[in-house]
């Protein structure tokens, strides 16, 4: 039960992270510090944070409960 929840959470997390489109240039080159974000980007970020917290909690619970 917990495992399926964890699996779903991980997949959702990967999905939302991929969805997120970074505004500034990735590696290399000077970075301009950009200003505000659109609301949809903000929502994606918020959801990602939430999923991250759930993921961490679930991972800790699962790995500490299966160690013999």
């Amino acid at each position, binding site marked *: 039960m917990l495992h399926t929840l964890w699996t779903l959470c991980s997949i959702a997390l990967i999905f939302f992270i*991929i969805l997120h489109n*970074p505004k500034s240039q990735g590696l*290399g080159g000077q970075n301009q510090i950009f200003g505000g974000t659109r609301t949809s980007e903000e929502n994606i970020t918020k959801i990602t944070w939430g999923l991250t917290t759930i993921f961490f909690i679930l991972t800790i619970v699962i790995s500490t409960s299966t160690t013999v």
Partner: protein
Amino acid sequence: MQKTKRNKNTYGIQSRVILTFLLIILSRFGTFIPVPGVDHDAFYQSISNNPIVSFLNIFSGGGFASIGVFALGIVPYINASILIQLGTTSIPSLEKLQKEEGEAGRQKISQITRYIALGWAIIQSVGVSFWVRPYVFSWDIQFVIEMTLALTTGSMLVMWISEQITEKGIGNGASMLIFVNIISGLPKLIQKSSGSIENKSNLFELFALALIFLIMIIGIIFIQEGTRRIPIISARQLGKGQIQNKTSYLPLRLNQGGVMPIIFASAFLVLPAYVSQITTNSIILSIATLLSPSSANKGIYLLFYFLLILFFSYFYASLILNPSDVSKNLKKMESSIPGIRPGKATTDYLQKTLNRLTFLGALFLAFIALIPNLIESITNISTFKGLGATSLLILVGVAIDTSKQVQTYLISKNYENILK
């Protein structure tokens, strides 16, 4: 009124610094969260003496020694970036995206990079899940899937954290994370090396080492900051009949890429180590060990390293500074380099100077990279296992880049306030 304005300036930078700090703590936290299903105690004991793992550990910040969820770290993203950067030179459609379509094209490329990072993370996680087979409680296909999922999610999270740092914090996210990973290995390293210091002669050696360290850092700062100034004269100045005292110049840095070529070169260097972990094919293994730092013939490794740095330096220099663009701009501004005709002659001159500078810069870098190895063979002190020249270069490079970025940000904020 003035006071509140100044507070507003520093507030921006303060909140960014705090956010960066918190994000970094989060990224470190994740390395200690164990992946479910692995017997971590047994794994840790058998792993701590493996030199290849300790080499790999530098970049994942220790996540490899205990298979945390963030074990892969930022490595898949960096390797994906390398692939894409190399791809833009060879695949014309990618090249078009990067050079001609401007910001939108660059965003597309960065999305492609992220997909490739995901793919790489998946492949590497599968590899790791096979590698830890002897330490798993119940190794079956479900475990492989779960571990792959855990490690991939972890790596994606690290990539996301690095993007958050780039957007909302200070510095370039990936560089900062690598910086932090290297630093996090320092306390253990100091502990290990100080363990062998017992009598006074060793103390002297330690002091000599520290001195060499300092000299290396100073040398690195010089190289990173070194610029060749090309004097530029504008047509207006010529028209006035005399050359004014204040000549403007075009700065060409010795090391155009900054810290990026080094990070890429060292990420590339880790590849043979990875390969030797997953294959048992003896031919591949022998090639891989030949190219790794623990091989008997260090010369080949160092040559390989030097060539990589050279390649990436040239590559980055051509990305950042395009001589034909610069000469076009000079023409537009009605300026020129004294003694060189505008147009193609300027482009050629710039290209030649750039080539020479880049070669010199790469030469210096490689020399700096050689120093610890030289010292090691002369004095027989096993220096800084893990804190090689590469790590030092990255540390100094990232520190310089970040501090410059912060300075620029503060200055531009000041200008904004003045204009208001």
